[in-house]
């Protein structure tokens, strides 16, 4: 491929993203005039189609690598809470709940960890890496409530909410490079370009998770998923209402975390009650109560 063609291919895709039919016409012209080969034309056409599908085109493997970097970025701001007992407990509970989700298996599986902060917050990185703050765990008075917190985050993973935060057009340049260089190890320039797109992707997602929050509808969707998961496993969805009640009491006006990124607990309770139907009673057998109290004792 000569230098001119190297510039021509990405340019074609960038200009014509979202209009694959037009792309086909132009690439045909490119082939006719000898500017690009048949194979390159096919490659560009495929890229344009891929761009139209945006986040759906992210493979499970990519979702995994995006999730790892999102979690590593969050851990740079929120220190991990290094206490084995609570981390083992949230994994026992969380990984058990995840098996009842619509997406029990992900590329790298579901893993949970506590963040050492009083702030009421939690993050679900794509692929199933879920971080929960000490502050949010303190809003839970029983295991059912903590199960609700984790099930809500699993809901975000299941519904691919993180990937939906990637800005439109962000992957365009990466897709173009990859289409042209398909099957090869990425060379210096291509690697730099794809890494740039990767950086942008991580920043889109962490920016949404940490600062702006998802759209209210996505939070309600995650709450609805939590109700479904809790019921399936055998926990009471009343745990979610109980936790939100506590959160309402603890959230200070203008606080960071859920106070800034989520609908108010009051609004969430209202929406949850609609999907919950009969609330049922929250039973807390002694053994369950005891292990919960022991696990969160130092949190």
């Amino acid at each position, binding site marked *: 491929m000569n230098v001119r063609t190297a510039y021509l291919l990405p340019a074609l895709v960038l200009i014509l993203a979202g209009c694959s039919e037009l792309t086909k016409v132009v690439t045909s012209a490119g082939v006719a005039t000898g500017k690009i080969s048949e194979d390159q034309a096919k490659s560009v056409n*495929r890229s344009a189609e*891929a761009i139209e599908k945006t986040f759906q*085109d*992210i*493979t*499970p*493997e*990519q979702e995994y*690598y*995006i999730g*790892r*970097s999102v*979690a*590593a*970025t969050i*851990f*740079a701001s929120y220190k*991990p809470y290094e206490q084995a007992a609570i981390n083992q407990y949230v*994994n*026992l509970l969380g*990984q*058990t709940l995840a*098996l*009842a989700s*619509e997406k*029990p*298996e*992900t*590329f*790298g*599986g579901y*893993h*949970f*960890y506590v963040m050492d902060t009083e702030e009421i917050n939690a993050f679900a990185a794509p692929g199933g*890496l879920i971080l929960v703050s000490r502050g949010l765990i303190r809003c839970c008075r029983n*295991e059912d409530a903590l199960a609700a917190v984790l099930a809500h985050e699993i809901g975000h993973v299941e519904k691919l909410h993180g990937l939906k935060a990637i800005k439109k057009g962000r*992957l365009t340049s*990466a*897709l173009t*490079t*990859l289409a042209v*260089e398909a*099957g090869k*190890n*990425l060379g210096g320039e291509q690697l730099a370009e*794809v*890494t740039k797109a*990767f*950086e942008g*992707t*991580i920043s889109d997602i962490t920016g949404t998770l940490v600062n702006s929050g998802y759209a209210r509808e996505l939070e309600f969707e995650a709450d609805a998923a939590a109700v479904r998961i809790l*019921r*399936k*496993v*055998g926990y009471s969805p009343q745990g979610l209402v109980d936790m939100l009640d506590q959160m309402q009491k603890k959230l200070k006006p203008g606080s960071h975390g859920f106070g800034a990124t989520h609908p108010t607990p009051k609004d969430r309770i209202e929406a949850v009650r609609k999907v919950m139907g009969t609330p049922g009673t929250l*039973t807390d*057998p002694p*053994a*369950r109560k005891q*292990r919960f109290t022991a696990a969160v004792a130092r949190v």
Partner: protein
Amino acid sequence: MLRNLVIVLGLALIAPSPAAAAPTRMNVQVQSGQVRVTPTFLGKILVTVPYGVSVEVLKQQGDWMQVKTLQGQTGWMHKSALTTKKISMSAGTTTAKTGASSDELALAGKGFNAQVESEYKAKNKNLNFAAVDRMEKIKIAPPEMQTFLAAGGVKPSEGGVQ
């Protein structure tokens, strides 16, 4: 006779059409696809199939697919571990044998991989990948989950770990 004919025709109408049957070949879309002896997460793992490798689907039972691996072993995989899309492999990895599919999973499958992560990591040394690695090591086996639920008096309704 007429009544029988009506019943037979009625049955024909409600019978599933061949098009609705489970796809015959699917690709593993998780890092390590677990093929189990029984259609449950508690089922013993017979063999694991790597990401991108195809399996033959024999039948579907709820959320589980009975599959036959390329080596001829038969077992059950959860449907979330499988896709009809063709998996594009990362550059540098061994090309997997994939089933024919009209819908390719992302050209971008060749990027955003370990190579890109290490490049990103080198440029952003403040990020805490060590914590992510520690987190990923915590794996709970389904029998442990079952014991956890039973000990806490949590009775699953359907699906989940059972």
